[in-house]
């Protein structure tokens, strides 16, 4: 590694444009990954919630995806999908599925039987009961899952720098190649910061959508 201060602030000030650009890229990659993860894991979780037997196979597949080393996965995908955002997102989405699937199922499972029975007994149709009773009550656990998936994805996005994406990962990779500490540290610190900010925003969202879970009898 080269000599000099740990962080060269003059580099930071002269690269604010790059920082902004990679921030946007990092956020976009994360938001797409978690959103697509929800779009895929949601229906799967609903199916698993209704059909107990389906949970094992779905968990198994999602679990296998989860355990593939990210480097290996991207290396494997490149011959098929190239250095594209598709390659990046296939990997990122794949890693969210297990967490999201498990949490959505767990959240729905935790809805008290008495509440479901009361809802049915009062004349809710199955569909309306799901959207108005079961899903809202599962939200705290589901959002907990989204938080874990988001924080994990923010970290994982940096790895996609290997296939020419990567958000802040790009700084880290360049820094490593050029033995330039400032880039490595800025990339890592910003990534952690972004994960923290995302988590805080999601906690706020949770408070917003589950006001009933915040209040308890004094």
């Amino acid at each position: 590694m080269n000599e000099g201060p740990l962080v060269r602030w003059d580099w930071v000030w002269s690269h604010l444009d790059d920082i902004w650009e990679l921030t946007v890229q990092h956020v976009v990659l994360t938001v797409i990954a978690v959103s697509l993860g929800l779009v895929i894991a949601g229906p799967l979780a609903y199916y698993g919630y209704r059909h107990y037997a389906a949970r094992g196979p779905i968990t198994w597949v999602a679990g296998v995806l989860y355990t593939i080393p990210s480097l290996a996965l991207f290396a494997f995908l490149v011959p098929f999908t190239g250095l594209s955002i598709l390659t990046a997102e296939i990997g990122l989405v794949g890693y969210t599925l297990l967490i999201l699937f498990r949490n959505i199922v767990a959240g729905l499972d935790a809805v008290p039987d008495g509440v479901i029975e009361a809802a049915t007994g009062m004349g809710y149709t199955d569909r309306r009961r799901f959207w108005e009773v079961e899903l809202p009550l599962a939200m705290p656990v589901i959002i907990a899952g989204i938080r874990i998936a988001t924080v994990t994805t923010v970290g994982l996005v940096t790895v996609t720098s290997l296939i020419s994406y990567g958000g802040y990962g790009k700084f880290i990779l360049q820094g490593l190649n050029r033995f330039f500490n400032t880039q490595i540290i800025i990339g890592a610190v910003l990534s952690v910061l972004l994960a923290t900010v995302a988590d805080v925003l999601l906690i706020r969202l949770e408070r917003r959508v589950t006001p009933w879970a915040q209040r308890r009898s004094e």
Partner: protein
Amino acid sequence: MIELEHVSKTFPGSPSPAVEDLSLSIAEGEITVLVGPSGCGKTTTMKMINRLVEPTSGRITIAGDDVTKLQAFELRRRIGYVIQQIGLFPHKTVGENIATVPKLLGWDQTKIQTRVDELMDVVEIDVSMRDRYPSELSGGQRQRVGVARALAADPPVMLMDEPFGAVDPIVRNNLQDQFLALQQTLRKTIVFVTHDIDEAVRIGDRIAILNVGGVLEQLATPNELLRNPANPFVSDFLGTDRGIKRLSLIPISTVALDPGPIVAGTASASDIAAMMSRYGTDWVGVRTGTRVDGWVGLGDLDAGAVPPDFAARPFATRLRPNSSLKEALDAVVSSHTSVAAVFDEHENYLGMLSADTISSEIVQ
């Protein structure tokens, strides 16, 4: 009002039926209690009425209409439903919970709001609680919100599955009283499931005693049931204190009161002695005008209390005409005088009851 005709239910994978060939008539405007040991199919029976459980065979009609005529969800919106753990929606406020069925029925917002306010008043929940969540309420308040929610669309029929099961005995008593007072004005047709025979006797206009496998052992008024159990199962289930339970159903006002050994406050010692020997007691009640504030015993007089200056001892329990004979019996066994003194609401003395009078009411 509700007719079950040869209804059976065998759950898939179960070797024996939960309910077998049950026929039962539930009278309009009455509370019919289904009671029995666990496994007697009382909850299953109730759930077949709103089709939470579909019968394997048989027919159920409400006001002559087969329950399978409507879509299950439409049928259920016409039947009030209260369950044991109340099943309030934790994510909805008190107001939103009560508004559930009107909202499902598509009432307009102003009508729903008016109805919610009205019901909160009926079940005595302060309107300030309207925007609270169920987790912020006490157990008793939750139960009352549960009842209000079931009443929201003014259904003629209500199904209640151990609605007061989850609260402590004092609160339960209050809820039962309040519920009975409410029913006096509402006159709903209510099917009420409980495993507690005391609750059944207290709440029910009619009690259906079910045996394991949904066999109807007896359907009768509480009084008839206690007086005349159909078979050993029923009498076992009613317990060894059937007589006491019956006493709890009979108000004092239906019984002729004895004037008792009462003397005027100005009575002489010989008057008092004569009264004691006439009634065979060692005490007399002391009257001032229409009031009897207490009694004096032989011991007090022997100790030198001189008429008319004796200090009367108060009766331990002062009963009202609407108290039950069970309460009267309690007063008898826990007082020195071995009688229950009865007074009207202005504290005027009406008479007294002895253990003999009370027992003759249920022995006759």
